[in-house]
Each structure stands twice: as structure tokens, then as C-alpha cells.
């Protein structure tokens, strides 16, 4: 078997068979989702039904107030405040609304709800909604306006945007593209850090435990490094696929378990991302523009480029991380300072990306998407907006070619540093020395 494949297989298997891998890959998302499910479950079911007695002496509501899960309104005749209070005290009702006979519907703040115990936030919002809705109708009627008239007056006229060459440039598409761009960019950013650091730790472990010398007497240092990088890359790929499957699975599962979510979620301050997605899909059928926006994003292309830039970026940075790992001795503090020059361009890329999602054609965005150290993150943000507009083909191909050249370059350079560093013990290695190793002739 090929030696790189052998090394990669070990790297992959030892990581995948670890308990922590199972924990972070499968249990963690399940626990997070379970946690949210619990929060939502409690917030949904906590609103036990509050009975409200309404003494509508002015007949504002005409005896009509919608009931909901949280509140039930009962209209009572011939009650005084005192008698209502008695009923609340005897727990027959949770609270009462007393409307004096001379109340006019157009006067604000005229409705007071007195309750025995404090009413929960959700129920409170609900009561407010129901009463306002009813009041609005009553008020409109008193001004001789029908609901239909009001609705037609309120109708939004949305401005439709398109570019001169005819492509649709709707807000919805712009919004979806931005979100996709952000998402893809951040995902690559996270991948670079998590798996890059994993490569670095792996190299450090081999160096510190001195097994590197045993192994490089059997395989070339380059094979060892590449095997490690490919093995860990495969771990990353598997982990991501599992996460994606889990996220989608759970997202569709949750609304099935708690069907009353969708309504609740609108008033929920905490919205897990998965729920937003569920919400989005729920709304999708109702909101054609959103569906259009989604449809206009070329998913196949984005996933294709995501994989390319994921692999390219990972290969480019992980070899640099491997070089740093090989230069570090026992002291992990050294790793911190040596890592800085590598983490800088990644953070720089994120800064450019936040600009690129808003304005994908700006000069800095174009530069960022071509420069191989930042292109995996920045180009993803731009590609989400579309090819060939705003990303022309020449830029796309140049960026891809530069990335390939970039990772060949960093791998070549890192391999030379790695080869020397991995057998160098005891001495603290500086960037200057690493630079010298990288560019001397062998």
C-alpha cells in the first residue's frame, strides 16, 4: 500500500475511533438540539390557561374575543368590580377586565386587566394581541372603514431591482446570497482553524514523543506530513457530513415533535438556527419571493465550489500549521507565538469577507478572492452572489489556479521546514530560521 495512504489511514482511524470524536460529532449536536427542544417545550407548555372574566358594560367587544391556548375570555353580565374581585379571589377566574359603561372605543388606555397572580410574558402578549385586534376592528367600524379598505390602502409596493443585462436582482435573492456567502465563508474559516490546529497538534505529538525519528527512517518526511494532512482532512470531511445530516434531520424532526412551534417561535427571543431554517421552509410555500430567492441561488455550483475551496484552503493552511508544529518543542507557548503569522491572514480574510458579502465587486473583495491566503473565505462570499455576475469567469479561474499554485507552494515550503524541524530538539526555533530552512537548497 502507498505509504501516504498508510499514514493517512492511521491518522483517520485513531481519531475516528476516539470517544471524544463520537462525543463531539454525534452527541454534541444532539445535546444542543435537545437543550433547545427542552427550552421550547417548557415555554410552549408553561402557559397554562388563564380564565379572564370580562364585564363589558360599554359593549365594546360585542361579546367577541378570541380564545387561545393561553387565555379564555368569558363575558359576564351585571357584575361590579367588587363581585369580580371576589370571583378572582375564589380562583374561579384568573383575572378580570372591567369596562365602565361610558368607555369609548377610540380612547386609549381604557382597558385594565386585574389578575390574581402575575400573568406570564407569553400570555400577556397574547392577551394584548387579541384585544388589540378586536379593538382595531371596532375602531374601524366606528370610522366607517371596512377591513378590506384598510388592507388595500396598506398594501406594500415593493420596488423590484434588476441589473441592466436583465438578470433578476431582487432583494430576496440578495439577502439569500448574502446569508449563503456568510455561512460558507465562516464555515471555511472554522474548518481552517479546527483542522489546521489538529494537524499542528498531531505533528507536535509526533515530535515530542520522538516517534518522528522512527517513522522517518521508514517513510520520507514529506509522505508523513501529507499522510497526516490527508488523514485529518478526511476526519474533517466525515465530521462535517455527519453534522449536516444531523442538523437537517433534527431540524425536520423538531416541528414534528412540537407542532405548535411555528407560532410560538415568532414571539420567542431565542431562535436556534435550526428553527429559523424550519421556519423558513414553513414560510417558503406562503412566501413566493423567498422561494424564488432560494431557487435563484445555484446550489449545485455553490456546493461544488465550497468543496473546492474547502480542500484548497485546508491543504494550503494545514501544511503551514504542520510546519509550525514541527518547529515547536515541548513548550506549547511557543506554538502560540509561531502560529500568529498564520492566523493573521485568516482573520484578515474574515474582515474582507464581511465587506465582500455586501459589495462583491469592490476592489478589496476582488483582491481578497484572488490572493490564495484569503481566497477560500472571500471567494465563497462572492460566489454566492453568482457567476459570471458579479464574479466574472476569468476571476474565478484565476482564483482557483492561484489557490492550487498557493497550496503547492506552501506544501513545498512547509515540507522543507518540517523535514528539518521534526528532528530538531531542545532549541527554540525562530521564524528567521524556518525561513532559512524553507529556502535553502537541499
Amino acid at each position, binding site marked *: *500500500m502507498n505509504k501516504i495512504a498508510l499514514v493517512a489511514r492511521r491518522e483517520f482511524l485513531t481519531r475516528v475511533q476516539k470517544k471524544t470524536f463520537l462525543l463531539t460529532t454525534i452527541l454534541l449536536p444532539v445535546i444542543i438540539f435537545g437543550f433547545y427542544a427542552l427550552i421550547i417545550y417548557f415555554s410552549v407548555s408553561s402557559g397554562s390557561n388563564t380564565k379572564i372574566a370580562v364585564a363589558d358594560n360599554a359593549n365594546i367587544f360585542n361579546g367577541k374575543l378570541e380564545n387561545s391556548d393561553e387565555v379564555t375570555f368569558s363575558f359576564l353580565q351585571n357584575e361590579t368590580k367588587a363581585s369580580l374581585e371576589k370571583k378572582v379571589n375564589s380562583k374561579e377566574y384568573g383575572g378580570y377586565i372591567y369596562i365602565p359603561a361610558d368607555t369609548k372605543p377610540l380612547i386609549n388606555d381604557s382597558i385594565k386587566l386585574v389578575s390574581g397572580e402575575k400573568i406570564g410574558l407569553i400570555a400577556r402578549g397574547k392577551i394584548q394581541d387579541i384585544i388589540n385586534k378586536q379593538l382595531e376592528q371596532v375602531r374601524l367600524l366606528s370610522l366607517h372603514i371596512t377591513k378590506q379598505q384598510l388592507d388595500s390602502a396598506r398594501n406594500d409596493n415593493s420596488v423590484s431591482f434588476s441589473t441592466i443585462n436583465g438578470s433578476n436582482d431582487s432583494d430576496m435573492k440578495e439577502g439569500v446570497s448574502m446569508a449563503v456567502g456568510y455561512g460558507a465563508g465562516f464555515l471555511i474559516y472554522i474548518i481552517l482553524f479546527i483542522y489546521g490546529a489538529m494537524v499542528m497538534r498531531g505533528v507536535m505529538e509526533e515530535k515530542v514523543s520522538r516517534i518522528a525519528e522512527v517513522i522517518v527512517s521508514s517513510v520520507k518526511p514529506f509522505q508523513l506530513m501529507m499522510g497526516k494532512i490527508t488523514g485529518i482532512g478526511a476526519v474533517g470531511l466525515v465530521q462535517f457530513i455527519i453534522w449536516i445530516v444531523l442538523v437537517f434531520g433534527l431540524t425536520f424532526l423538531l416541528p414534528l415533535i412540537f407542532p405548535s412551534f411555528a407560532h410560538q417561535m415568532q414571539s420567542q427571543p431565542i431562535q436556534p438556527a435550526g428553527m429559523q431554517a424550519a421556519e423558513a421552509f414553513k414560510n417558503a410555500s406562503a412566501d413566493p419571493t423567498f422561494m424564488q430567492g432560494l431557487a435563484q441561488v445555484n446550489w449545485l455550483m455553490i456546493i461544488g465550489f465550497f468543496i473546492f475551496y474547502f480542500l484548497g484552503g485546508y491543504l494550503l493552511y494545514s501544511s503551514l500549521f504542520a510546519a509550525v508544529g514541527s518547529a515547536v518543542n515541548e513548550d506549547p507557548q511557543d506554538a502560540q507565538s509561531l502560529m500568529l503569522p498564520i492566523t493573521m491572514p485568516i482573520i484578515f480574510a474574515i474582515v474582507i469577507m464581511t465587506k465582500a458579502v455586501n459589495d462583491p465587486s469592490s476592489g478589496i473583495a476582488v483582491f481578497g478572492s484572488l490572493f490564495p491566503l484569503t481566497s477560500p473565505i472571500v471567494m465563497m462570499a462572492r460566489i454566492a452572489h453568482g457567476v459570471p455576475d458579479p464574479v466574472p469567469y476569468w476571476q474565478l479561474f484565476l482564483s482557483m489556479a492561484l489557490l492550487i499554485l498557493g497550496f503547492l507552494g506552501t506544501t513545498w515550503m512547509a515540507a522543507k521546514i518540517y523535514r528539518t524541524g521534526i*528532528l530538531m530538539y531542545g532549541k527554540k526555533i525562530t521564524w528567521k530560521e524556518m525561513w532559512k530552512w524553507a529556502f535553502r537548497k537541499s
Partner: protein
Amino acid sequence: MALLELEHLKKYYATQKAVDDISFSIAQGSIFGLLGPNGAGKTTLLRMITGIFFPDEGNIIFDGKKFDALNDIIKIGYMPEERGLYKKMKIGDQALYLAQLKGLSKNEAMEKIKFWFKRLEMESWWNKKVEDLSKGMSQKLQFVITVLHEPKLIILDEPFSGLDPLNANLIKDEIYGLAQRGATIIFSTHRMEQVEEICDHIVLVNLGRKVLDGTVQQIKQDFKENKFSIQLSGIPATITSKAFDVIDMKATKLTVKIKDGFKSNDVLKYFIEDGVNVEAFSEILPSLNDIFINLVEDTNAKTRSFQKVEP
């Protein structure tokens, strides 16, 4: 026939000459001792022989051909001084992995691991992790990993450090056995008594240069100081002879040094004529330890690492 020949090997680092023009050859099936103080360039030399480093200058002839690291690596087993194993990996898997890296197929590797584990009574270790092993146990494992693929050339850097006498003997016997079956062994150590016991041929390096090369017997002969030990029945009151000087006297045992131009018989003759009975008479050969210290002591071996390379 020589299995390995080094011809004018050189390896210079930025601040030092690690290996400076070293040549020697190692006969097939011999146990060869590579000696030298710390930092003499032994490890660099070994790394060049194992293909980890390329020499700056010079040639390595391995098995009659120019050394080709890529293909010859399977014929070499190297046990570095700094032992290295994956701490969290199971011992069986580890041995299997390292054997496969050497180029064995999985089945071959499995078969050989089982053979060696059985031979060294390590079978019950298979599912243990290295971090659970004692230092001596991991040493044994490292030895097995080194010789597993039946290399023609086995390089052992301090193989006995950390082993108890029982296990040290076990490994020593294995080393003899391997040599008898045709393997050539390079043995690098500071422990001179082991070298005297085990090695056929030694080379001493210091400051990146070869200072000594020969068989153990030959070197001892070369460095002998004409010292003899004499056991007498009684000590005469005065001993004065132009043939030798007495350098030590313990009860009835004398140590004498014969002066240039005289032979051992002159010493015997003196005592016989003096009427003293000679009970035992033997030559004192210097120990390798003494030779080693003698040769290395006066050089600035310790300060060498800061020495500048002359342009």
C-alpha cells in the same frame, strides 16, 4: 565482504561540522560498535546511513550498490536513542503499523509480530497502550519493531538503557542470534564494557572525525602501555631494575611498566635472579574505557558545539 562502506562522508551544519570526512566499512554479519562522546556526530552519521539526512559530500555504498534511501530502507532497522512510540496506540496495532510502513504486507507483518511477541513473551501485551508500559517494556517493544522486518542492517542506539539485567541479557542474546543469521549490527553506545563484550569491530568518532578504527583486540594491543601484573610469594626489600618501574604495589601484587627496549622476560629474569617466587604474571591491556577517556579527554569536546566553521 563489506555490507556498508562510507566514503569521505561530510555533513556541515550552520554552526558546526557534524561529520567531517569519515570513512569506514562494516563487514557483513559483524557487530560493529560506533563510539564517541555526546555530540561527536554519531547521530548525524546514523541518520545519514538510515537515509534521514543526505550527506553534503561523500558516498554510502550499501550492499555493493550506491545507497538508495527509497529502496534500501526496508533492509535497514533503526532504533534511535530517543525512543518514540505513539502513547495512546495499542501495542499490537502500533507494531503492525510501523511494520507496514517499512513495506511489509499486512499478513506478513502479522505473522512476524506474532513470532517475535511469542519469542520475547510479549503476547499478553497486544491490547495494552504504550502509556501503560514500563520503560523496559517499551524498550523491548521498540527492539521488536526495529528487527521485525528482518533487515540486513540493524542500527541500535543505546539498546540497553533502561533494561534490567535479565531483559538486557535477553536482548543481547537476540542480537547475537541476529548476527549469526547474517544480519549486520551497528551498535552505538557510551557503555564501554558492553562494547568490549559484544562488538567485533569499533570506530571511535570525536569532533566529527574518526579517531580510531579496528577490532577490539587490535586496538587494545595498539594502546597497551607495557604494563604487567606480578603476583610474588614475598616482596623483596628493594626493587631496582633498569628494565622496568614499579608503579603500584598491593600486598604481594605488583604492577610494573616495562621500559622501552626491554621485554617481559627481563622482568621475570630479575625476580628469578633475586630468588623471589613468581606465582602469577600477566599483561595488563588497557580497557576500552581508558582508551576512550584518553583519546577524548584532552580535546575540547564539550565546547565544540559553539565552534565556528572555518570558511
